[in-house]
Structure formats: C-alpha cells, structure tokens
C-alpha cells in the first residue's frame, strides 16, 4: 500500500501534478478562542480541533491582571476595600467579607452581633446577584436567549435591595473591617421577604423553561464529567466541587460570623457533569433564600452595627488567613502584617482560578459545541482569576 502510494506520487510528479499526502497534522486545526470571542471574554484558550473534537486545550488567562495584591501593599487596611471589590463587582460583598474577617483577626476586634447579621444578609444578596448573572451568561452560551433576559431582569430584585441597604447598586463597599457601613433602612426586612417570595416563584419557572428543557438536558447531561476523585485531586471548589458529589461548603465546614446559628443544608449532586454544575447554583440560590429568611428572623432588633475602630487600624505583627464561601467557591485572604497600618503582603486565593485547572482536563475529548457549556459551567470569572 505504501509503495503504491509512493509510486502514484512519483508518477504524478512526472506528469507535473502533485498529490498531498494526508498526515496526522493535516487534520488538526488550531483555534484561538478569545480574548475577543463571544464565548470567552477577558480570557483566551487555544484549542486544537480534529473535526469537531477538541484534542488539546491550553488556557491562557492574564488579560485583565491588575495587580490587586501589590496595590494592597501601598494602601492601609480601610483604603484597600474599594479596589479589592473590583475583580467581581457582582459579588463585592463576599470578596470584601473574607478580607474584613482577616483584618479583624489581625487587628483583634469583635464585630457586634447585629453587624454580623447585616453582613451575612449583604453577602447572601450578593451571592444571588452573582449567581443570576452567571446563570444568564450560561443561558446565552447555550443559545437560550430567554434564559439570558430573565435572570438579568430578576437580578434587579436583589440589586434594588442592595441599593436600599448600601446606597450603591454594585461595588457597594459595604462589608468593612469592624462590621458594616450603616444600619438597615426602614422597611428593609419586609421588602426583602417580599422579593424573596417572588424570586422563589421565579426559580420554579427557570426550572420549567431551562433545566427541564429536553434540548438543554441533551446538551449538558453526560458532558464534561468530573469525577469525585478528580475533583478532589484537582482542588476545585464551590459549586463545581459540590456538583461532583462532595458536600463541601465553607459556611458549613468552617462557619464564620453567625453561620453556625443558621440551619441549612449543603446542596450537592453526584453526576459531576455539565448539567450538575449548572443545576447546583440553582439549588444554592434556593437554599440562600431560606438562609436569608432565617437571618432576617433571628436578627436582633437593635444594637451597634460596627465596632469602634481607629481610622487607620493597625495590629501587632502577624499573619491571618480567613476564607468565605463566595458565589464561585472558597475565597480566602492571606494577610501578613508587620505592625504598620499597611499590610506587608496580601495574597488572594480565589475559586475561579482553582476551577480553571479543571478546564483542559474536561475539554479534551469533548466536542467544540460543548466548549461553552463546559467552560462556563466551571463558574469561572476571568477578572477574578487574574486579580
């Protein structure tokens, strides 16, 4: 056979023709997905495709690196708040939550009980806002335009509440070392309960139109399966870990503030596929509504919301590491202080970057059509990963 082919090539060369010999490399095509691509956004991955199958994937983050960690070293503990919430503006209460916890540990202050409750409410609201935004983009990634519009619209419910609570729709710099900036406004509790009740009805509609849609199931079930062992080995976190059958939630595993007084279940699924990773955030949102109800119920009626703190707080030299459960998983701050009002070193450990590690592992062998659903189901926020 080889000889025959070589013979044909020789014959054709004599006749002035050319036969191109098909080799392995001819089949492959390299696509640069991003950074200007509707399926990536602030992020690039180079995929090599063989027909419609992905044979190699090479993530390339770093397009929105802003040096948040270095910026922290030039500002004092309070000044750091506004720029630290920039990486995930939708989840700013959570990203400043763990920072505040770490600073409080360094400085050695106790947050008043009412302040702890308000803090938790703000962070739950922001988790909803982030998850809805994430869900909207997941919808449009699968080509479901209604699922893009509905969560973006319903996100306004919680943005309204946050607006009333903090004075800003996003990036509200609300959770600060020592507590929260201000007390809840008049009528906030009732408004909050009303919005939650409406939102729970909407969650049922989301399930009807999106999660129970046979086409959506076909596309996501059994796609990009991350087994329990792999999930633990790769160190993924948040909803991705819970979708692989590990019921791990920082709020339960190492409760911070008043979360040990709240009764809630850690939602998880066992299949570990793209569908489970898309469905666990919905279960989380539903659980978060319950948590918010309990928080509002148990909140003391009066009291301080913020501990007395000097304008430039400083503590003894030392180090602190505290983490919270954000919309994307464990979000931790490691802060080293040398006794001055400015931190000596700040290291942010984000869930997004941990989940990115699973991306090449899941994409290789899947189809190009599965690329957006696998990629976005990893709950990856490029700006946060680049910091």
């Amino acid at each position, binding site marked *: 056979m080889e000889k025959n082919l070589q013979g044909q090539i020789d014959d054709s060369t004599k006749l002035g023709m050319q036969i191109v010999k098909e080799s392995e490399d001819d089949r492959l095509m390299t696509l640069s997905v991003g950074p200007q691509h509707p399926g990536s956004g602030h992020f690039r991955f180079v995929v090599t495709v063989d027909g419609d199958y992905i044979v190699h994937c090479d993530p390339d983050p770093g397009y929105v690196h802003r040096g948040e960690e270095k910026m922290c070293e030039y500002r004092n503990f309070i000044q750091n708040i506004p720029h630290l919430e920039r990486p995930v503006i939708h989840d700013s209460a959570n990203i400043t939550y763990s920072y505040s916890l770490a600073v409080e540990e360094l400085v050695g202050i106790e947050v008043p009980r009412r302040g702890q409750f308000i803090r938790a409410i703000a962070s739950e609201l922001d988790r909803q806002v982030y998850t809805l935004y994430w869900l909207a983009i997941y919808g449009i990634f699968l080509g479901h335009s*209604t699922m*893009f519009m509905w969560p973006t619209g319903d996100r306004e419910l919680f943005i309204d509440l946050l607006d009333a609570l903090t004075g800003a729709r996003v990036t509200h710099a609300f959770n600060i070392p020592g507590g929260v900036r201000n007390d809840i406004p008049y009528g906030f509790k009732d408004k909050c309960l009303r919005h939650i009740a409406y939102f729970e009805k909407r969650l049922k509609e989301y399930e009807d139109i999106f999660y129970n*849609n046979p*086409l959506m199931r076909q596309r996501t079930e059994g796609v990009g399966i991350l087994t329990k062992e792999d999930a633990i080995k790769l160190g993924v976190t948040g909803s991705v870990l819970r979708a692989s059958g590990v019921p791990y939630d920082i709020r339960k595993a190492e409760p911070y503030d008043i979360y040990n007084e709240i009764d809630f279940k850690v939602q998880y699924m066992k299949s570990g596929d793209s569908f489970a990773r898309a469905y666990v955030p919905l279960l989380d949102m539903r659980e978060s509504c319950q948590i918010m109800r309990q928080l509002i119920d148990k909140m003391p009626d009066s009291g301080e919301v913020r501990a007395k703190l000097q304008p430039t707080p400083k503590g003894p030299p030392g180090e602190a590491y505290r983490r919270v459960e954000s919309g994307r998983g464990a979000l931790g701050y490691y802060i080293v202080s040398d006794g001055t009002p400015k931190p000596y070193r700040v290291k942010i450990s984000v869930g997004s970057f941990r989940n990115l590690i699973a991306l090449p592992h899941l994409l290789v062998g899947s189809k190009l*059509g599965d690329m957006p659903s696998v990629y976005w189901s990893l709950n990856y926020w490029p700006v946060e990963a680049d910091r």
Partner: protein
Amino acid sequence: MATAPQGFRFGNFVASLIWLILWILIIVALVALPVIFIILFYLPLPPVNGEVLTPYLFLSMMVDPTRTLPIVKFLIHTELFKVAVFPGFTFAALFAAVTIFVERKFLAKMQLRVGPLYCGKIEGILQLAADGLKLISKEIIIPSGADKPIFWTAPIAFVATAAAVVALIPVAPGWVAANVNVGLIAVFAILGFFPLIALLFSWASNSKYPFLGGLRALHQMIAFEIPFFLSGLSVVVLAGSLNLTNIVNAQHPFWFIFFLPISAFVFFISSLAELERIPFDLPEAESEIVAGWLTETSGMIYGLIQLGSYVKVYALSALFVILFLGGWAGPQIFPKELGPSNTTIPLLQLLTLQGFYNSITVNAIFWFTLKTFGIIMLMLLPRGINPRIRIDILLHTGWYKLIVLTFINMFIALALIYGGILGPGGLLTAH
C-alpha cells in the same frame, strides 16, 4: 407597559406626518413626474382599452380617476408585476420586514422586555428602516486573502435564490409568478443551492470560524433535506401532482394536515433546520464559532443575507401552508362587490374598484396571508424557549428519527390511496 416615549405628543406626530406628505408631493411634482414623462417618451407602450398609450395619455389616465383603473388593471396583469411586486419579491420582502419587526416585539414580550421603542415614535415601527440605513452606510470590510468575486456574489446569490423560491409560490388562484408542473421539485432544487452558497461564502472568507460554520451548514442542510423532501413526497402521493396550485386544489374538503400530521411535523422541524433558526442555528452559533459562516460579513453584505434568510422564512412558511393547510382555502368573508354595481359616478367607480376588485382573489390572499403569518409565528416561537442543539444530536435527529417518521406517514398516505379513502373516486374526495 409604556409604549410611547416620554415627551410624545400626538399633535406633533400628526404635524410631522403632514410635513412628510407635503415634501413627498413636492418631490413627486418637481422630480418624479418629469422623469416619468421623459422615460415614457422613449418607451414603446402597449394599447390599453383600444387606445395606444402615449406619455400624455398615460399621465391623463393617472390624473383622471375613471381612466386610472384600466391602466392599473393592465399593469398588474403584466409578468413584470407578478415577478417584481405582488406574488413575487416585494410582497415577500414586505413579509420579511413585518416578520423581523414582529419577531423582535414578540420575543421581547416573552422575555419581559419591551423591544424596539423609540424609532418611529410608536412602538419602534421604523427600527427596521433605521437598521437598514445603518447597514447601508457601514463600510464593507473584505478580509485580506478573501476570494473577492465569490465574496461579493454570494450574498446576492443568497437573496436571489430565496426570491427564486418565492416565484414558485401561488398565493391565490392564478396569482403565481411561475406556474410550473414540477413546482415542488423546483422548490426543492432551488433550496439545494443554499448549502452551496454557505460553503462557498465561508470558503471565500479565508477564515477559520466561517469555515467551521460553513461545514456545519453543509452537514445540517444535507441531513435535513432528505426528511424535508420525503415529507413533501407523501403530500404528492395524496395530491397526485407536483404542481403547487393543483396540490392546493386537491385539498378541497379536507386539508392534508389531518391525514399527514407526522409529515407536517417533520416538514416544520426540517424547515426550521433549513432556515438555521434556533434550536438549529448551529452554523451561526455565536458562543462556539463567533458568528459561523457570517463572521466576516459586514455592512450591506450582512444585511442582504439577513433579508434573504427572512424571505426564506416566508417562502418555507408559505410552502407549509400550501402543502398541509389548504393554501388559500377559507370561508368567503369578503362581499362580492364593494359598493353598488354599475355606477356611472367616476369617484364611486374608483372607490369601489369597479372591474378590478375580485372578491375570490382578495379572499384567497387574505386567508393565505393569515395562515402564513400563523406559521411564521410558530417558527419564531422556539427561539424564545429552546437552547441550541448540538451537532451530533442534530445529525442523529435528521438521519435517523425524522426519515423514519416520514416513511411512517408515507405508508399511511399510500394506505389512504389504496384503501379508496382519498385519491380519484375516493370516499372523501370532492366530486
């Protein structure tokens, strides 16, 4: 929902309309009429009502109401009118424009939005015109290394092919641009050009994403063309003819959708795939391959392809109506005459469209338009409720499931013919 923008005043709106009409009148009087006069002077005009048309006579006929109707009647029975205006391209393009507008508003209502709102003061009705103007004024960017002749011709070929399908569609008895005996085969033959155009254009773009999109378009259209043809075949078995007018006439007492529901379903699904609409918009899947084979299009090239695809929406919906919903059949709701017959008052003659108004044709056009629009609405609906399907599921659906379904319904059709229920001399055939 608020539908009028802030600061909207009806008086101002009416005033602007009056100004518009005034300007149109001035332009017609100063520019259009002289141009028409000059052109008509050089054209050999045919005799109408026994009079040889001269430019002067033509203008006097346009001004004199009693003599306008014969000339209009003469004009609308020319072949050019049929091809260019009424059952042909302009009608289809108008349908396409209405479809685009209705789609945007309809989808917006489904998604708790308002859709286009400001352009044209009322509900954004002029949004489409604004978009068209924007597309025309945009620069057309041709990628370096593109095959320029094909890159330029493909969009025009796309619109032309879509318009060619429209030419075969009868909208009322006798109202068809091309009444051919192999109508259905001609339609399918013309539809076969679309994957070729998509592939040529994607190859000519010299870019990776269009290439992937073009291959996807090719796979998809070929996978769905066979169930598409086969679902049409069972209609042909029942009707005993390939001529679209005869197929409509064959559905006289009962529409074919009652006998061939599975074929109708397969035809609908396949036409969604043929039109590259959600859930089958894989060739343009924006989150996977940017915009598929349309990635390198810009300006009016994109506009033409969009126009072509919406004309195609009209053509395939109309085909569905003709094959399964009895075409223009429907109860007679228009009166036989618009006013008192045989009046001699010129103005009344003009208003009642005497000698020109045909109640059967108007009724047929009305029902045909209504049914076609219903099918178009059904075609728009999946866009609001479904995500995009994956290529392997799509091909599996096309090659395995739909073809088997069409065969089932074809056997039903054959059983109806041989069982003596339909067909010549059948129980349910009109005598």
